[in-house]
């Protein structure tokens, strides 16, 4: 019984995959691996988030977390929508400004050096400050360079709850919510340089109750602002809305059950050297927990945001969305992965398919685990086989996917992957829905292996067209006038 984990493929992505001749040509011309970006899908994803805002009658901005993909096509396409962008480095800020984002649509987050802070202040983007020290440094820059007041958000963390204690992972970012008065002291003292427009948090969790505690904590902090006469009007709840990667929840359940049995030794291993993805056997029992992205997430992306806004706040017992609206606050979100749902794929060419003496089948690819970082992010999802010719031996096959680095550890995934038909050398594997964090997020030139090129694939005039990612702009040059 093959244990498939079939990817969820929307109509646009499927239509691109169906262009098998084009895919093969692109791979032949530009090499393996090849990142394929579908920028236009991003527009639809922005609209889906927008409709949640309008359902709840909320205003505010959707800031795309740029770090999820370095593609230019995505950022330029996004500039043509009404969304904003969240930049977390100097180069990302330059990239966003160059793609057409005016500073009012840019939010700078994360750890910042002085150059980054200076460009933020000089151009007038909103700075989401990580610490009291960062606010002080920013105020000094503003004074030293006679810059206009900078709009700032204060990032908070370490929220506490009454009654039931909701524990959250410790975060390296943000000021403790209990110490918000220190932030406000600096803001008040440097009112000439800093204009507080809101408070922010980002929790690395899929749990709603923790986020409800944090959001209510932000409301408390904003109330403290109002008590002091400050008038910030927004709450930024960060990202973490997630993506549903798999087409069939039952496959996920079968697979994870089988993995548990394999860890216990009750069935043949499903992974290279019996890796347990966080599970381990102690005697006849399983310890640890599955350290994987929950690939089957029926409530994800915009639906997760909707669920969060419908969640009752722990203290005031009113839906969080209603509370935001009651208080006239704008809601800001910073989705990365969720905005890039269905926005791209990675093509890798098959170098060799061989059967080992122990019965294992190996598929060696011309790419490595850093080019398709499914394993690094714990996402278990099958690639799609793009055959050059009709497969000689139809029927499913379980294979291990080896990478092109001369390292024992370079497997694209440590999981045995079941494919519906056996690939052969020259075929392509398409790792679909990988635009968010799973494409070239941590690609390197280790061993002088090349970092894959990237192309933008877009619909124009009823056909698929393509160009290099850095050549893409939302205005498309038609081959000829109609």
């Amino acid at each position: 019984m093959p244990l498939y984990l079939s990817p969820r493929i929307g109509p646009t992505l499927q239509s691109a995959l169906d262009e098998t001749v084009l895919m093969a040509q692109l791979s032949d011309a530009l090499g393996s691996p090849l990142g394929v970006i579908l920028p236009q899908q991003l527009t639809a994803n922005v609209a889906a988030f927008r409709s949640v805002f309008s359902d709840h009658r909320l205003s505010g901005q959707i800031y795309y977390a740029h770090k999820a993909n370095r593609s230019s096509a995505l950022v330029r396409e996004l500039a043509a929508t009404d969304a904003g962008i969240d930049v977390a480095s100097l180069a990302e800020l330059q990239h966003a400004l160059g793609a057409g984002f005016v500073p009012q649509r840019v939010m700078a987050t994360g750890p910042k050096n002085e150059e980054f802070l200076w460009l933020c202040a000089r151009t007038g983007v909103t700075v989401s400050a990580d610490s009291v020290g960062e606010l002080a440094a920013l105020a000094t820059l503003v004074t030293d360079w006679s810059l206009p007041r900078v709009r700032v958000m204060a990032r908070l963390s370490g929220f506490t709850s009454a009654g039931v204690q909701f524990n959250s992972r410790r975060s390296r970012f943000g000021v403790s919510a209990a110490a918000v008065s220190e932030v406000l002291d600096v803001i008040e003292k440097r009112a000439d340089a800093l204009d507080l427009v809101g408070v922010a948090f980002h929790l690395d969790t899929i749990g709603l109750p923790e986020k409800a505690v944090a959001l209510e904590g932000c409301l408390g902090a904003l109330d403290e602002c109002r008590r002091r006469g400050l008038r910030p009007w927004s709450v930024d709840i960060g990202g973490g809305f997630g993506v549903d990667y798999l087409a069939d929840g039952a496959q996920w359940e079968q697979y994870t059950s089988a993995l548990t049995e394999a860890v216990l030794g009750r069935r043949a291993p499903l992974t290279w050297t019996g890796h347990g993805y966080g599970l381990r056997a102690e005697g006849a029992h399983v310890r640890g927990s599955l350290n994987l992205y929950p690939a089957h997430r029926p409530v994800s992306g915009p639906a997760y945001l909707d669920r969060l806004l419908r969640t009752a706040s722990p203290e005031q017992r009113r839906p969080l969305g209603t509370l935001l609206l009651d208080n006239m606050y704008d809601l800001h979100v910073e989705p990365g992965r969720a905005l890039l749902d269905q926005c791209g794929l990675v093509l890798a060419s098959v170098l060799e398919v061989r059967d080992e003496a122990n019965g294992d089948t190996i598929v060696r690819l011309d790419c490595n685990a850093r080019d398709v970082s499914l394993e690094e992010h714990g996402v278990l999802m099958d690639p799609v086989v793009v055959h050059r010719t009709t497969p000689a031996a139809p029927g499913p096959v379980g294979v291990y996917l080896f990478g092109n680095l001369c390292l024992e550890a370079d497997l694209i995934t440590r999981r045995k992957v079941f494919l519906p038909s056996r690939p052969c050398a020259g075929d392509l594997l398409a790792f679909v829905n990988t635009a968010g964090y799973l494409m070239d997020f941590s690609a390197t030139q280790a061993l002088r292996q090349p970092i894959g090129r990237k192309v933008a694939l877009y619909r124009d005039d009823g056909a698929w067209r393509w160009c290099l990612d850095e050549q893409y702009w939302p205005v498309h040059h038609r081959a000829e006038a109609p």
Partner: protein
Amino acid sequence: MRFENMTDAIGNTPLVRIDPAVHGLRNIDLYAKMELLNPFGSLKDRAAWNMARPLLTQAVERGDTVVELSSGNTAKALAVIAGMHGLTFKSVTNRMKVAEIKDLLLLLGAEIDELPGQAECLDPTDTDDPLTRMYHRLAGSGDGYLHTDQYFNELNVDAHLNGTGPEIVKDLDGRAPDYFIACVGTAGSSTGVAAALRQHNPDVSVVGLVAHKSDFIPGIRTIDEVHEVGLFDPGVYDTVETITADDAIDGLLTLVRRCGTLAGPTGGGAYQGAVRHLRAIDAQLTERHTAVFIVCDRVESYMSYLRERRPELFGRPPRRNSLRTVTDADVRQAATMDVAEAERWIAERRGLVVDLRSPFAYQALHIDGSINIVDELFAELLHGGLPFGHRQPVLLVCPVGEKSARYAALLTRMGHPDVRSLDGGIIAWRDAGAELVRD
């Protein structure tokens, strides 16, 4: 019966025959072990008491906190037992899902620690799950905790090996039943009872019931989760079968409506799983057999669980003057007032301004002179009739003018001649630069 302590009332629960007209089995007598009649409300009273009792004297001397990983009945029983001995109880849980149990624990004075949810951005080098961290914390802190460790503590099994199991045999006149069906939670009761029954009859057929993987049934683990339980030994069960939340609720309804047994979903699941398993066997039998299942706890703690999954069971007659009866056409007819007009109207003190937002938001900033009745309270008042006179002009205010228009339409239909809604709500008011105050 005269006792010194409530803990003396633990155990010795009745074994009650289920009416064959209800289950329809012709050759099998089906008995329910009524564990819901334990003093703190469940089967877990036995394990909690058995695990805690030997450690209590020392714990009391040291003033330890009793701690257990539980989001249900074990936590409840331990909280009561801790309280009886002047100790505090802390429950560590992986998301407490049943609201009533959480409230009851807080009422009993327990502390509840919720473990963090799964990370969205995975760190593959972080291989310690929150549970393992909790074990380390308990072990590392040394003194200060009495950790009952129900998933690994053999005293959990012993409570049933020496209590529940022998009671069943005694009530069946010294014979073990042919079939024993139990839901698997900590595996303590099924393992203990099965061992006791097999001492009398090695051929007892033991059926373990686990929850369907995507379902949540309080007190029952899924097929993957049982492997994490230290007390779980697959050899105990002749078969392990799956039940769904729907099965559990169907069984619960049969027990509460037809059998005089106010069982919770675990008991319901055990009944439904038992009947399903036995029905296939029953047809082939030529002699009489006996089967026993356990009714673990009571229904009252699961009202929110049932309401969420079977809202139709709680259908109530509609209340009068309900906002839901207001149509979009009604709303379009509702009188409104724009910000400029409202500023004049308010300055001239022409009537009452009612702000329908939350008290927290109202207190932060509001229109001077307005009063605050939060919408849910306002809706409640209107079920009883108009909360102000006909001659009292009213302006309703909400965030964007949508809710206030619905209420204006409702009040108009109730016969109020002069009620209006602030167009665009308080957000339009703010955006127009009109004054907002804070007391």
